């Protein structure tokens, strides 16, 4: 088996465009949650988010950041004109992918790459229905040609993937993972699987999402997932005072290939992908299995595939949503898998700092986890101040912890009960 490695990373988050913005923010122990600026959320139950600090997802923004070998400006301009960029998760994916592609020193010889993308919900544009809305009903017969044909009513779920494939002229297959909040981690795991099976020489992979829009924000609020407090410390993972999550947006993308291939072209890997696993809660659509046993199975499957034991794990980057139900269930899962080692294996969640990126959460948190290998620094848990006895694990507080660990275990759990775990290893 040819071990898969990560050779490039790019990120867009509430800290800004670029993985350095993410790493620097986390290294400072900072938070990036703020009042929503992209629309008037004044009457919404949730009014704070981990919003990417860009005025608009426009041609100008992309032109500033995309550094590709060919002139892509005409293509981007066309996308802006036809509405392709309307759903922010598409431009976020393009920005993160371009950074990952560049950091992996990818070029023409990587165009055979496949794409494994975790792509968020179709964004519904409620305003598109207004012109068809008469006497309490939508008059579908009056639907005519639109100036924004690509995203009329909703943005297709596969649109970011199509754009990535076109922009990077990828010749490999396209896979769109739709496994809710487990999808980002599963998409990277799938990339590693394709490389190890010899099904793809290189895979551009990761996740992108933006639920910072009226319907998604309103929908999440109806479920009762977000914190009711419109404050910057609204998300407090594993904290006794936690009362819900904060929605975030953004993207993280990676270039994954075999270690032999990376070394042959003179690129030092950022991390090895040692193992992965998934499981299903089979419990409830929007609540985790309280005893964490199903989540533990995903972690055990990942460690088993990696050929590692509990004592090998140096750090756990948790799903850690800051909700009443998730955090204790995850803590129980971690303790079940790590046993006595759980007393000394540091655990943290970055959702207090950047919010819950939903489908992209696993991807952005994997990017954050690379801090452990790049700077010997484990990200802190923003707003974690009071230990909860229900979460009986070693949670890193607000500031990052200096430590040189060799193995990182990353958890992601999704609505519907999908659980995913990925194991990363340091490359010396």
């Amino acid at each position, binding site marked *: 088996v040819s071990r898969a490695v990560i050779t490039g990373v790019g990120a867009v988050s509430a800290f800004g465009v670029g993985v350095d913005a993410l790493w620097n923010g986390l290294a400072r122990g900072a938070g990036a949650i703020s009042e929503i600026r992209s629309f*008037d*959320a004044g*009457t*919404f*139950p949730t009014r704070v988010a981990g919003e990417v600090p860009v005025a608009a997802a426009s041609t100008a923004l992309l032109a500033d950041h995309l550094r590709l070998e060919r002139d892509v400006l005409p293509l981007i301009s066309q996308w802006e004109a036809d509405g392709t960029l309307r759903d922010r998760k598409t431009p976020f994916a393009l920005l993160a992918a371009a950074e990952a592609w560049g950091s992996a020193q990818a070029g023409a010889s990587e165009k055979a790459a496949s794409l494994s993308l975790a792509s968020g*919900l*179709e964004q*519904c544009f*409620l305003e598109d*229905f*207004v012109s068809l*809305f008469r006497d*309490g*009903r*939508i008059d*579908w017969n009056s*639907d005519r*040609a*639109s100036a924004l*044909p690509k995203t*009329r*009513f*909703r943005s*297709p*779920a*596969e649109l970011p993937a199509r754009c990535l*494939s076109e922009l990077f002229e990828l010749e490999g*297959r*396209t*896979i*769109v*993972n*739709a*496994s*809710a909040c487990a*999808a980002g981690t599963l998409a990277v795991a*799938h990339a590693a*699987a394709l490389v190890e099976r010899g099904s793809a020489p290189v895979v551009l992979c990761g996740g992108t999402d933006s639920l910072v829009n009226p*319907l*998604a924000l*309103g*929908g999440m*609020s*109806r*479920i009762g997932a977000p914190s009711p407090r419109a404050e910057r410390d609204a998300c407090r993972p594993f904290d006794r005072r936690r009362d819900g999550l904060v929605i975030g947006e953004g993207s993280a993308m990676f270039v994954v290939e075999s270690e032999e291939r990376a070394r042959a072209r003179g690129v030092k890997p950022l991390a090895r992908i040692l193992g992965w*696993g*998934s*499981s*299903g*809660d*089979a*419990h*409830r*659509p929007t609540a985790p299995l309280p005893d964490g046993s199903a989540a533990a*199975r995903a972690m055990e499957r990942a460690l088993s*595939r990696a050929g590692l034991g509990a004592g090998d794990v140096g750090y756990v980057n948790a799903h850690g949503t800051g909700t009443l139900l998730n955090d204790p269930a995850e803590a129980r899962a971690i303790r079940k898998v790590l046993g006595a080692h759980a007393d000394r294996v540091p655990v943290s969640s970055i959702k207090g700092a950047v919010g819950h990126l939903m489908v992209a959460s696993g991807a952005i948190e994997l990017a954050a986890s690379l801090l452990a290998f790049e700077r010997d620094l484990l990200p802190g848990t923003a707003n974690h101040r009071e230990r909860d006895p229900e979460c009986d694990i070693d949670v890193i507080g607000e500031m990052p912890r200096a430590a040189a660990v060799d193995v990182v275990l990353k958890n992601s759990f999704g*609505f*519907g*009960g*999908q659980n995913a775990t990925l194991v990363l290893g340091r490359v010396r």
Partner: protein
Amino acid sequence: MRIFVVGAEAVSVCGVGRAALASHPVLRTGTLLPSRQLARTHPGVGAAEVPEIPEEAELFSPRATARMSRASQLASIAVKRALREADFRDARHEIGCFLGVGGSGGSVGEVEAMLSTSVTEGALSYRLLGNVGLSACNPLLTFQTLHNFTLCHPTIAEGLGGPNGAFFSRGAGTLVALEEAAASIREGDCTRALAGGADTALHPVTWAELARTGYAENGLIPGEGAGVLALTSSGEGALAELESVAIHRARGKTLERVTTRALHEVAAGAPALPDHVVIAPWGDASRACLRACVEARLQRVAMTDASRIFGESLAASPALAWVLGVDLLVRGAATRVLVLSHGIDEELGWVQLSRGGAR
């Protein structure tokens, strides 16, 4: 490691269950029954719609049904039946489940209720939406339906806790689901897994999108359904063997070139050629191309057009064609079946099945 099909079930225009496929009618434009689901928004659109689901197939309480998308309901029925046929009764927390899934599936009536309270003077008011519009419905569950709930409703109902994955699909994602299910068995993540797809093209937003982008004018018959295969590494009592799964990228190339090349490769390397080909094209041009390629490369082969039976059911289309292929093998109408699916994502899916465990 060899992978066997020990259960194959479908819900389609033919009705509930694989047995219903044997008496399928052939769909012809102009003779289709108008869709009930589109009756209010797009009256008169002919469709390959699942008939009223018989009471014995109803698996859910009315309350649960109200929270499930159409695709989730169809998937749940097919999953339950496939598990039963495969006799996958024990240790369900170890059974994997991988599905190709589609997009929105919620109620347009609820969207209208939300608009009624949120539009003022011909414009959408976010203030009103936040204040009162959101109380009309939960947009996350009624309009922007979570894609993976098509997978998760059945896994929750059936207690399936093994490895899993939901892949957004306009065709190829469902092939990915089958690939991953087989790989999860081969790589030791589980010993039994389900794979398939469920979707509907009969949601008003989906149909508006398909009509606006020209698919309706090119022979696409909207349909819906779910198809699920139960897989294991043991050939005992198997309905079929899953010999190969592949996805050939047709985007940017001609379908003819991709199909011809794929058929050439299999003709050169396969131990035996298929005696029956099931094609699942998405429209007239795709149909003509697949037919011509198969006829040119595989002489004296029988051919069945699954899209003429099931219509275009998006994420469900390839899976329904697989179940049809298994049915041909089980009924003795073929010994080796090749299923070629070509979805609106322009990818060519390839699945080869042979009878029982014999090879």
